[in-house]
């Protein structure tokens, strides 16, 4: 798991311009399920690579990283220059963000705002894989 201080709520792609729009969400924790089949380098690449998972979940480096696989945790920490281990107040922090935030409302509002902006013509954006 990783501390996420710039969480992406939705990542949208304008089919005309290909422009990516990221929408922030309050800080949260991002969980990553590494697969044994991918091997160490694959597990690392799938998380921190250019089109890896992290860049789809956050716009900034993780605030911290923790997990059961010490080698992977250490590699992620070195890559991002972040500390290892959950903050002492992690349980309270997660509970607070759950109580204070409505992800669905936030997402809908963000998409509506984007659609009404001058970035698009009002049509629904596409969500695509890369």
């Amino acid at each position, binding site marked *: 798991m990783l501390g*996420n201080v710039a*969480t*992406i*709520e*939705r*990542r949208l*792609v304008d089919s005309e311009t*290909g422009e990516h729009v990221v929408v922030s*969400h*309050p800080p*949260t*924790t*991002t*969980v*990553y*399920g*590494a*697969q*044994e*089949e*991918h091997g160490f380098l*694959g*597990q690392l*690449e*799938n*998380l921190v*690579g*250019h*089109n*890896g*998972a*992290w860049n*789809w*979940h*956050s716009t900034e480096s993780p605030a911290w990283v923790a997990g059961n696989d010490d080698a992977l945790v250490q590699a992620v920490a070195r890559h991002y220059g972040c500390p290892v281990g959950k903050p002492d107040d992690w349980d309270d922090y*997660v509970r607070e*963000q*759950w109580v204070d*935030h409505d*992800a*669905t409302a936030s*997402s809908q509002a963000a998409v509506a705002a984007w659609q009404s902006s001058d970035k698009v013509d009002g049509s629904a954006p596409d*969500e*695509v*894989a*890369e």
Partner: protein
Amino acid sequence: MTRVNSGADHQAKAMGGDTTVAQSGTATSAPAATTLTDTASTWPASTTGPPDTGGAVGHILISGNVGGVILKNTATVFTIDYWHQLSNWGSTTAGTTPSNGATYVVCPGQAPAMFMGLSVATRTIAAADAFLTNDGTTVSELWGSGGGLNRAICAFTHSLGVGSYTLTITYTSNTNDNGNAAATVHRIGVFPTNVTAAPTTATTGEMLFETNLSNDAVLVPSQGDKVTVTESVTI
């Protein structure tokens, strides 16, 4: 990203249940590599596809320390993708086939759709697509024995409290892929089942999502070209 029709069925059963929820029983003959027979089973049969629908399709059948995703079933025979090792669900090395008399459970819900396959197909995606295809009738999914572009399990990532998740995998091509010829990967499919041989209409299983890559990935196997694909799913 398009959630195809079979994906809607899978998703509904995963989240809402099924008309038959679960079942336990005993194998009444020696199970095979992809089948388990229970003459006392009461689960309704699936409807012929591809992919088969209804019945126990998409449920996980577990026996001991192995399990498989049900592709189809008759009144007494469950057909699965293969016996996955529960300790390494993504491995294509099958676990030990259960024995005659083995107890089993067909679990509630559906198997997680964590497997991604690649295709060079450019045919327009349709909700009715039952598998990755370029002509609507034959499977067009890259697969080679020992290849690096075969259907494989993805890493799951989710930010707590956020209505989305991602599936990510890095494919590394090798000379076993696409006849050692360059492959222009155009789209991906997301499946709850894996394959241990080139997928056919009988083995490809339910497909949940079909998505064109934002850019085609031209992979030259002899160069070991790689591509990382992330499928972002809003829920």
